[in-house]
């Protein structure tokens, strides 16, 4: 992101001149109080919004200059999970994950093995035929992670993935994200979970009032000096 400013039609300015570069294979925590602009950064990255000023480059492509029909292709390079999981309640775990491939035009015979593979990565092979309502919160989030992984994304974005989970389960999810990162996928995680951020010691980018106020590698949730 280069000199990115984003203001919304209602006049609220969410980001003010943000410069942020995330290298391939990086693991980045995006922290900051509510309303600091974390969600806006994510929305810009998946091109759900366009910057008011500045450019957002993903894999060298200017997201502001994409043609409409190129947008879905870019999104397939990004896996994303949210605090509220966003699973379809009437589909099984397997179908929820397969859905991501189905709606992007994949063939049946490609879908099944791909789904099995990611379910193995997140450790849900045994629950494949259950509905989301039968799962624990952690299992639901792992289903969402599996769905986000099924396209083999280059960038994995997690927006408060542990917000609805208890500490132990949160740790499982973080471990899973670290493993995904080890597989070579860039991970960006927006979070309020200070304990996790401080324990993992990865790069921390702190936003406050739409500005990057701190960008440290191997840092804690709070400033340590």
């Amino acid at each position: 992101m280069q000199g990115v400013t984003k203001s919304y039609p209602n006049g609220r300015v969410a980001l003010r001149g943000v410069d942020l570069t995330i290298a391939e294979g990086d693991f980045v925590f995006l922290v900051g109080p509510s309303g600091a602009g974390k969600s806006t950064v994510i929305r810009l990255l998946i091109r759900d919004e366009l910057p008011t000023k500045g450019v957002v480059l993903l894999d060298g492509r200017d997201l502001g200059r994409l043609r409409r029909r190129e947008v879905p292709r870019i999104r397939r390079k990004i896996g994303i999970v949210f605090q509220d999981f966003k699973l379809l309640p009437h589909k099984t775990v397997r179908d929820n994950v397969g859905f991501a491939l189905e709606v992007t035009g994949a063939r049946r015979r490609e879908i099944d093995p791909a789904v099995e593979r990611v379910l193995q990565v997140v450790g849900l092979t045994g629950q494949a035929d259950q509905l989301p309502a039968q799962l624990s919160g952690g299992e639901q989030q792992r289903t969402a992670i599996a769905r986000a992984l099924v396209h083999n994304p280059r960038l994995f974005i997690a927006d408060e993935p542990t917000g609805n989970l208890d500490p132990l389960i949160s740790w499982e999810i973080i471990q899973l994200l670290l493993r995904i990162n080890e597989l070579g996928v860039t991970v960006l995680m927006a979070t309020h979970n200070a304990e996790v951020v401080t324990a993992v010691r990865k790069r921390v980018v702190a936003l406050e009032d739409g500005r990057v106020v701190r960008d440290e590698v191997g840092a804690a949730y709070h400033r340590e000096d």
Partner: protein
Amino acid sequence: MIAFIAFSIRRAWQSFWRNGFMSLAATATMVLMLVLLSGLIILLTGLDATLNYVQQEVQVVAYLKDSATAQDVSRLEASLQGMPQVTQVSFVSKDQAYHDFLARHPDEADVINSLPTNPLPASLQINLRDPNDYLDVATFLNNQSPVDRVLNIKQTVDQMVTVIGILRAGGAVILVVVGLIVLFIIVNTIRLAVVSRADEIEIMRLVGASDAFIRWPFIFEGALVGLLGAAVTIGLLLVSQGPITSLLSDYFSVLPVEASATVGRNIALIVLGTGVGIGVLGSYLSVRSYLIR
């Protein structure tokens, strides 16, 4: 491409049944609106038939001189029949006029019988294709030698033409207004059905589904709602066809109202076209608001 269409239809079918309540609501609204629309069309068809009938009843009546010979009269008849404005010419002889008069005014029999000769003239009664041609034909007749005078009902005809025009325009306006209301209500109902699945659309966008993959299942689903709605409506109309026809012929027994197969087929086609068309349009518009960003 075929795989894509199969996918869209399969998804449309699945989600129609999975969201049973919403689909039911949309289909029920569709049926209600289509019944309203087709009822209105049936009424307006009846009105139109009535107006056509009334228009055809506009006659130019030319009274003939008693001195006119049969030859003169038949020559005049022939030239009238050659006019494009004229659909039918009938000759009413003096005797016929006398009998008609008696039949219409039986109480006046004494009056007319007390006269030495039959005072009623022979006449030609000319049916017109279009009442607006009244003046043309009347002027033509006035200049013919066997014609004594032409009954002048120009003003009455003009008034009738105006009234018929207003009724027709009014019918068309009502049809358009009701059509728009129907469109609005159905589109809105389908919109509700789509909004209830906003999550699904959002997920599809997030995982990188192209617009076509998001849109077409909904469009097929809208078409399915339209198809089912139209089928139910046509079924209802078929069931009620008997009672409606007898009701119509009771009310309009004077009129040659044909509740014929053509009318039925036209209404069925309109119902089907409107149902599917609005279903598709409603889905298209509803999904579009989620796709444009």
